[in-house]
């Protein structure tokens, strides 16, 4: 029965906006996010007569870095092609893209033990942004984005489900962020994803594929894949045929819809861009770029696992530039790696979320978190005291100093502990009687009040030991 089930065959197309200061083919500043419309525009962006493109070296280097991180071939000849189309979002009436010789080819990425092959990654310039006011007979154009540098990365159809697609995209995002290639934030449109999907029964040829475009969150990708897999399976099981459509995703309705395509038919008349000399990526060039590459998330993860960090924590730390940078700085403080990770991803993350802030925006010092964890490790403060101190440590206070100032060190004065025990026993004679009658478990009812009376500063094992002694256990 299982073998009769339909399976999804999925390929992804990912666009990443490169983190350069100027646009791909002109010196026009590229940092337009949040700016007024049409204020990041120069003659080349407008495609004015007489303008000539000049290729941004940093964009090429970032694309090479990204290609190398995806295990692609990048050396050798690469060039740009003109992709001709007439649409208001591109005043020059063509896109400068790559066609026969993309800058990166034949790579792969390991995701959860499976290998997803990367067909290609190429450089191209982005188009402007069109807005469509409700009920207006016109659209509004903002050309700030036009000409900004993109990488388009295309996978082979190696993915089989939404969860895997999401994990893949999270890896791509982590790599792009770690390398500083792109902010890769879907919510800002700096990472955009199209899904190609068909279903078939294993052993049978692939079905007709559809393309789901403009998915602007990982969650949308996952949901759209689940929806399309189910829809196509239903169509085929009912004896119907899947039509080869370009689809949009309705996030609110949780369903795909057929989009009117941009061109009636694709007729881009690609030709080699005569205004841009080709590139020869030499091994020396690649070596220079490689030397610039920081540690990749997969390498970080291995390093954390080797240090004794749990799998899930190692994954979470390695996927975030901010977290791993902070964690690495805190590790220098000599705290236990797993407990440090646990505090950072648990209590610290929770408190930051409650305060609606981020690690970068908070005053928390890596050395201070390390010191706090070390204080617990050394038995100098209890876990409870550490938790109480955390809000102040997050505000930039040194935990060691806080402990000294507030006299919060672990209570080693057995006299004080004994006094608290006596008080607890006097307050609860019934429990004392139970314990004396042989119910050792009833002891726990006395333990809480003693810990409370000592402000959580007493060592639990000391309290337990002295309680037992007093009660003759």
């Amino acid at each position, binding site marked *: 029965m299982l073998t009769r089930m339909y399976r999804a065959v999925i390929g992804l197309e990912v666009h990443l906006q490169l983190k*350069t*200061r*100027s646009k791909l083919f*002109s*010196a*026009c*500043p*590229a*940092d337009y996010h949040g700016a*007024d*419309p*049409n*204020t*990041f*525009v*120069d*003659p080349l962006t*407008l495609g004015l007569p007489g303008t000539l493109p*000049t*290729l*941004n*070296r*940093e*964009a*090429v280097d970032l694309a090479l870095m990204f290609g190398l991180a995806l295990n692609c071939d990048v050396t050798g000849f690469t*060039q740009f092609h003109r992709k001709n*189309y*007439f*649409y*208001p979002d591109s005043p020059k009436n063509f896109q400068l893209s790559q066609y026969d010789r993309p800058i990166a080819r034949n790579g792969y990425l390991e995701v959860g033990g499976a290998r997803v092959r990367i067909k290609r990654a190429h450089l191209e310039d982005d188009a402007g942004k*069109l*807005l*469509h006011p*409700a*009920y*207006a*007979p*016109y*659209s*509004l*154009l*903002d*050309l700030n984005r036009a000409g900004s540098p993109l990488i388009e990365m295309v996978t082979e159809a190696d993915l089989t489900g939404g969860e895997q697609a999401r994990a893949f995209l999270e890896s791509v995002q982590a790599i792009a962020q770690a390398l500083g290639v792109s902010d890769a934030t879907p919510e800002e449109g700096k990472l955009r994803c199209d899904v190609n999907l068909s279903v078939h029964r294993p052993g049978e040829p692939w079905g007709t594929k559809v393309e789901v475009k403009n998915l602007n969150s990982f969650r949308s990708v996952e949901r759209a894949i689940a929806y399309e897999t189910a829809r196509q399976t239903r169509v085929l099981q009912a004896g119907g045929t899947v039509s080869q459509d370009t689809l949009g995703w309705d996030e609110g309705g949780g369903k795909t819809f057929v989009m*009117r395509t941009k*061109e*009636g038919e694709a*007729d881009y008349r690609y030709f*080699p861009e*005569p205004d*841009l*000399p*080709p*590139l*020869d990526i030499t091994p020396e060039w690649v070596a220079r770029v490689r030397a610039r590459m920081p540690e990749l998330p997969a390498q970080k993860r291995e390093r954390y696992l080797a240090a004794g960090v749990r799998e899930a924590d190692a994954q979470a730390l390695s996927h975030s530039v901010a977290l791993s940078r902070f964690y690495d700085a805190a590790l220098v403080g000599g705290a236990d790696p797993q407990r440090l990770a646990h505090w950072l991803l648990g209590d610290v993350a929770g408190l930051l979320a409650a305060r609606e802030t981020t690690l970068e925006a908070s005053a928390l010092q890596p050395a201070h978190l390390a010191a706090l964890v070390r204080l617990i490790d050394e038995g100098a403060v209890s876990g409870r005291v550490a938790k109480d101190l955390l809000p102040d440590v997050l505000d930039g206070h040194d935990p060691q100093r806080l402990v000294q100032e507030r006299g919060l060190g672990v209570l080693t004065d057995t006299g004080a502990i004994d006094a608290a025990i006596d008080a607890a026993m006097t307050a609860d004679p019934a429990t004392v009687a139970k314990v004396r009658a042989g119910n050792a478990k009833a002891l726990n009812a006395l333990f809480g009040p003693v810990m409370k009376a000592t402000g959580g500063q007493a060592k639990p094992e000391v309290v337990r030991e002295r309680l037992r002694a007093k009660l003759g256990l």
Partner: protein
Amino acid sequence: MSARILAFMIGPVSSAAPLDAREVEHLARLARLDLTPQEQDNLRGDLGRILGYFEQLRGVDTAEAEEMQRPVSLINVLREDVPGEVLAPEVVAALAPEREGGFIRVPRTVEQD
């Protein structure tokens, strides 16, 4: 290049293999041009002559010639990533046929909801 040399190179131009009406319509649609039948007719003639030049070029024996995609054999010409000037908003606005706020107004590109 003088007109004499050009005429020598391309010879008398014939309007061989004219485009049919459907091909002209297709090109007009891709270029988003709304052409009258008269304009389409004129274009068929003009484009036919241009294609005629290329027909002649195709007749030249290039078996021995090296393929050339660009007129100058430069390689690896790059610009440093240093941001430069933008156009003043009023300059951009003046170039736009219609405006609204800072936006450029263009014919609607999607259907009304």
